[in-house]
């Protein structure tokens, strides 16, 4: 219909042009007039459709509820949901009508009727608005009309909307984790969550059930996350930094063009592959080595997960460090070499100090990656929340717990499910802070030489 409106709009603008003696007498090109009419036709009706679709279900169920006789009227939200489901199933034929209260059958036919009418109504309304809008746009056209400006304004608004989607996403994340977290903190005090030493989220389903009183002290999770991240960093920082220094300062262009993409392959491997590698290759290897040396190593040791995570982060650190080292001005290098320093002395005493803010920023970003990494730890680290710093023991992390708590069916009123959102909130805040600091540090440094 909008296409049709476009054609009509353009034709009418051509008519104007003919009367005035050529297209150049119009304010805008004919296609802009066409687009303006098309927008008048399409936008309002699209908005209307969207609104109707959003409100339709609520209005229908309210009308239905008003029509239901008193004796089966629901008293609570749960009962209401049950009733609505039942009517829904009756209407779709999933539930046979045998032995069902006649009032419910009436309700289901009413539901079908209401849906049908509303669909017809909405379609008719949308068509009407589209037609009306199109005609209005067509009617209000003249040679002096600033059609291009109007069309461009709409387009610009659309662009702005797309750009602000980033804000909405952040807002959505915040809303989703904050609301559920607040509900969680109503059941479990914040102090217990932040400082409690025991984590066992299994809550009893019935009050008289034994086991699983549910304690939500997240310290073991934080400790486990830190332990694994620390192991990862001890692997990734030296390896990443040294390879960046070598590539930037020593390596010839041939080695560089070969080694750099090879390292970057590591960055492109999906985390699930690392997880598989950690769980099936590295962990058994570490366990067997440990056993042969007389150490008790679990097959879900923090070491395996941390080691593989470190490998994953190497290219991240090396490419960031490579950038900042290359950004150090050549004058500093030349000056130091001219004073008689060896190459390694120049690197250690001149280049690294000059690049330090950037490197620190990169390492902070890498830490936030390590904390938020999920698949490796889900597959290679354990579930048991132990308060230990022994890298050969099994620990669990924040992300592992979020996944285990939320995979499968959830009920959104138990502390168990909600605790995952509280953990998510912590994760979000910590990584946000790390990223913020890291970006600030990097930015501040960059301005120095530019």
């Amino acid at each position: 219909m909008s296409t049709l409106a476009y054609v009509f709009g353009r034709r009418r603008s051509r008519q104007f042009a003919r009367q005035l003696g050529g297209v150049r007498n119009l304010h805008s090109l004919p296609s802009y007039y066409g687009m303006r009419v098309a927008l008048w036709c399409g936008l309002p009706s699209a908005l209307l459709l969207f609104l109707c679709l959003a409100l339709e279900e609520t209005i229908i169920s309210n009308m239905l509820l008003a029509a239901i006789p008193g004796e089966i009227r629901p008293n609570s939200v749960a009962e209401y949901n049950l009733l609505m489901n039942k009517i829904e199933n009756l209407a779709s034929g999933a539930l046979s009508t045998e032995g069902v209260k006649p009032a419910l059958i009436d309700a289901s036919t009413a539901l079908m009727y209401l849906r049908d009418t509303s669909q017809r109504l909405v379609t008719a309304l949308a068509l009407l608005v589209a037609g009306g809008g199109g005609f209005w746009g067509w009617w209000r056209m003249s040679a002096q009309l600033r059609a291009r400006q109007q069309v461009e304004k709409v387009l610009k608004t659309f662009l702005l909307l797309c750009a602000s989607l980033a804000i909405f996403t952040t807002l959505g994340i915040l809303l989703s984790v904050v609301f559920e977290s607040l509900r969680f903190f109503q059941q479990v005090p914040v102090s217990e969550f932040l400082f409690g030493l025991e984590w066992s989220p299994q809550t009893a389903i019935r009050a008289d059930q034994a086991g699983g009183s549910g304690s939500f002290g997240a310290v073991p999770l934080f400790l486990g996350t830190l332990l694994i991240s620390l192991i990862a960093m001890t692997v990734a920082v030296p390896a990443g930094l040294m390879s960046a220094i070598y590539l930037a300062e020593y390596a010839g262009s041939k080695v560089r063009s070969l080694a750099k993409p090879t390292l970057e392959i590591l960055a492109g491997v999906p985390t699930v592959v690392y997880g598989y590698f950690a769980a099936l290759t590295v962990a058994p290897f570490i366990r067997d080595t440990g056993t042969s040396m007389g150490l008790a190593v679990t097959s879900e040791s923090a070491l395996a997960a941390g080691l593989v995570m470190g490998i994953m982060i190497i290219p991240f650190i090396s490419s960031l460090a490579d950038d900042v080292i290359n950004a150090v001005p050549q004058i500093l290098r030349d000056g130091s070499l001219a004073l008689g320093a060896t190459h390694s002395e120049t690197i250690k005493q001149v280049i690294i100090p000059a690049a330090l803010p950037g490197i620190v920023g990169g390492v902070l970003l890498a830490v936030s990656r390590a904390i938020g990494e999920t698949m490796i730890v889900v597959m290679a680290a354990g579930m048991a929340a132990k308060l230990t710093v022994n890298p050969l023991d099994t620990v669990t992390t924040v992300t592992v717990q979020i996944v285990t708590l939320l995979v499968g069916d959830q009920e959104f009123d138990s502390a168990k499910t909600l605790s995952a959102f509280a953990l998510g909130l912590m994760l979000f805040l910590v990584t946000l802070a790390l990223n913020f600091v890291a970006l600030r540090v990097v930015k501040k440094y960059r301005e120095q030489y530019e």
Partner: protein
Amino acid sequence: MNKPSNASTERIRKTLAKRYRTEKRFRLYGIMAILFGVLCVATLFVDIIGKGHGAFRQTYIQLSVDYAPDVLGISDINDTQQLALANFSGIVKNSLRTRFADVSGRSEKRQLYRLVSNSAEYELAGRLKANHGLLGQSEKVWVLADDDIDTYFKSLNSRDGAFVGRTNDTQQEWIQSLIEAGEIELRFNTNFFRSGDSREPEQAGIGGAIVGSLFTLFITLVLSFPIGVAAAVYLEEFAPKNRLTDFIEVNINNLAAVPSIIFGLLGLAIFINFFHVPRSVPLIGGLVLAVMTLPTIIISSRAAIKAVPPSIREAGIGIGASPMQVVLHHVLPLALPGMLTGTIIGMAQALGETAPLLMIGMVAFIVDVPGGITDPATVLPVQIFLWADSPERAFVEKTSAAIMVLLAFLITMNTAAVVLRKRLERRW
């Protein structure tokens, strides 16, 4: 330099050897770091290819099957009801018993029946359905072997000796006799690429997961590319320098570094619980991944737009085009290769992503190959995750093979991005 001219030169000379040693050591550290990285890449690939290459071939056993009407219970071949209910497992068992006539006793028979996969009967049913004339005839058919047999047969020639697993001595003897008769062989495993998930390793395939991944990626692309490009255009070309713009930029930079699992929480709380998008379908997966890849696409698109020289814009404005016309007609087409490159890299990221999809129910066990964006589906990385958890030994092979397929996809996409950049990139 025969004689030291003064004390400080002397001092420097003394330390020189040590300094050069330090220099050499430092250099060595660098080389070691690089070698470590390269070694990791090599180990990863060798390990996965070593484990997974076997899965592309599958063990088949030849049976001579007798489509006896009385065993099948079919009196009228054109009766679809009878055909559907026919006892195909009976004729499979019969043919196994005829092949190994000396087998007696209930437990031994049960072990005999375990040689072939339970998909054999469906295979035979399919054949009879396609060719009604087979009824009462007998023919030689290659059917899938059970996964334990498959693992054993493949490992027969391996260096560490055969992997026995759950097979026992009698079964191994039968396999030996099959080998001598040439009635067992490895064939290319087309089933692996065609079928969906299954509890039986020999029947499990990644077809469903690949299709699911494609649908999900399609949704991601359709949503994130236009929105990402539009946002980048706004921020680079039209955004006034004000608080709102700054705020948007801070948000985009932060979102690019938010852990992916947080996007899963977002999908669960907002899309599923608030907007009631159904779970486990490519639609919701694509939505979440689109939100996740958006920052990547925006950032790379902005870089591409920035790379278009201002002279183009000035020339456009100079001959009377409006800023919007300049952007749409000149800047965008010139920046498109760069944007596409960024988008492909973003898509590759989305293809390999697992964690957020676990939250939104893409982790379900789904046998059917999905037919649309609202059919329950799983994606390739999640399939890998599911199989990696399965206890059967045959799934190790399958998992590695699935990883190989996933990596092949990713490498293709990344290579395409690099080639695209090299081909279409313009130096100004």
